[in-house]
């Protein structure tokens, strides 16, 4: 079976939905962060796939930038997680609702 752009897109969508469900359903902050990474990577996959099909390097550039930002985001995100844990002694995301209206 020849691997076409459709396969990449289906894989990307599956990864994105898994990530979304992870963000919505899991309570552990670390898992939520991981799910977000999954969503980002699904998007990167779609970028690269289209880039390849259309023969345009712009998609690659976006993907590389996105990975860079994701690295920074993870660094800040994990630092926040550590800080939250030292204050609250819990990683449950539902206790962080001080900004409730």
């Amino acid at each position, binding site marked *: 079976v020849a691997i076409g752009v459709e396969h990449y897109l289906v894989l990307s969508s599956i990864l994105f939905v898994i990530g*979304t469900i992870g*963000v*919505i*359903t899991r*309570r552990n902050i670390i898992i*939520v962060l991981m799910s977000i990474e999954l969503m980002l990577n699904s998007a990167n996959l779609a970028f690269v796939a289209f880039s390849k099909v259309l023969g345009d390097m712009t998609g690659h550039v976006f993907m590389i930038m996105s990975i860079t930002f994701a690295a920074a985001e993870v660094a800040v995100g994990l630092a926040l997680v550590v800080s939250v844990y030292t204050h609250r002694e819990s990683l449950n*995301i*539902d206790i*962080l*609702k*001080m*900004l*409730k*209206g």
Partner: protein
Amino acid sequence: VLVWVILAPLLGALINGLVFASGFWKRVIGGDEHTEKRIVSFLGCGVIFISAILSSILFLSLLELAPSDRRIVQELYLWIPSGDFSVSIEFLFDPLSCVMALVVTWIGFLIHVYSIGYMHEDRSYSRYFTYLNLFIFFMLVLVLGNNFPLLFVGWEGVGLASYLLIGFWYEDYEKARAGKKAFIVNRIGDFGFIIGIFLIFYVFGSTNFSDVFSKALDPAFIRVIPGALITVIALLLFVGAVGKSAQFPLYVWLPDAMAGPTPVSALIHAATMVTAGAYMMARCSAFYTQSPTAQIVVVSIAAFTALLAASMAITQNDIKKVLAYSTISQLGYMFMAIGVGAYAAGLFHLVTHAFFKALLFLGAGSVIHSLAGEQDIRKMGGLRRYIPLTSYTFLVGTLAIAGIPFLSGFFSKDEILGSLIERGFVIHWIIALITVCLTALYMIRLYILAFEGGTRVPVPIKGHIHESPYAMTIPLIILAILSIFGGYIGVPDFMGMAVGVPQSNIFEGFVAPSLYVVELSSSIHHILGHWSVTLLSIIAAVIGVAIAVYLYIVNPVSQQTLMRNNLISTVYRVSYAKWFVDEIYDSIIVKPFNSISIWAARFDLEIIDGAVNGISDVVILTASILRSAQTGILRFYAAAMAIGALAIIVYIVISAG
């Protein structure tokens, strides 16, 4: 030089105010109070002395010029350049403003010196001199300004200084209230005045005195503007003068203004500020002379005021209140003269009145000072033995204002009465004649009750009665001399030979170039001769004196006999209650105004505030519903975003497909 006449008092006010009254001297430099008082007195009087000397120098240099060239104009800078409307800070020294400046600075200087003695004990000594210097500054701006806006600046400035000084002892609620009353009543007059100024600019396209008056006197220009405009302008300006110069119906602030320190009453509410209206109308003689309607209004209101105030003065028991009503009545004389077009006579009375009324007020101040604050003449009597100098100078002032021959008041009053009858205002002349009689009556009554007969001073105060310090008595003596001889600068023509003055009516000749007067046509003959008019006014004055002497010295029992007569006792009570004018104003103006205010406040609170609060209530209600969406649970937000994004995609797909 001209500018320094005005700036010197301002400098005095600034230094006194910023260095001493602000407490900088005491707290920051750490100077003691004794030195402070010495510096403040020296500075306060010194700056006025400088401006008095400078205005005298200017007066002498004015005399060297030919009568028609007697104008010194100094422009400082363009103040408001705005299209067609441009106003300069520009001062004018011509015979009219010269007379005013000399009166203001010299009388002002004497009163400053007097204040050193009078206010010596006061703890706000430097604040007092700050206000006093500030007043002189604004008064000089008023009389020397060369356009209407600058005149108005001075006009409002003296109002401010007057307010500050009436309420000088502001801890006393009644006194602070009197200051407020003066300010608010004056506001009513100023409203008319400022509309008058707008109208002048609208009609003449300028506010500069020489531009406006040269156009107003140009027959070609007058012909093209509506005839009633000049009358309207004249009447609006008169409304301003009615407020500032305490004429009926806006005179009610002046008696209350006596709450201020007595030298203030002498300076502001007798000698200078209240005459600003007369000065302004003399300056605008070009309008009044051309409007017979305005003239009749002015002269009628003035005559009514003179009589009304004199009738109130007769029964008052407060020494300063008597003098206050007397001031209103004398201002009535000035306005009568101005109303009939005899501006020089009005200004002449302004000058002599400044002499003798300042003298009387300062004399009253000296009495109050020696009696430790007592103002009720029923608790005086026989003071001549204790404070002879004050009582003799007071007697001079009394005789001068009563119109006793050959003192200053006699000549000026006679000229006004003469000009009334010369121009055919017979009814007004009769009213003025009655007022002469009443003036003599109430002034002699005041003198007798305060200084003659047995003493009614309570025993505890009696031992302390003392003559005032030199700082107070020397100004009294100088003013007494001026009250006696001041009239000889303006002896009427026909009397010149009789009183042995070689050149009669110097004063009128001097101010004439500033005034616009229509020469009387020869067809108007005197109904009575000059001398018989004079004789009648002397007789009126003598009748007044005689009644007072009879009632209060010869036969005091007759007072009770008179009071038993129903009519006389009713008149007495009405006069004592000041014709209930304050009560009438209270019930027809103040009370309705208050109830309107209460309704307006209610409208504001319930309808306007209600609308504003209603809008905010709606916002709060909406927000409280929408707020429930913001749970604070992050997973909920993520789900919402995901569903939202999905919905958008679905929508796009459906609408595209």
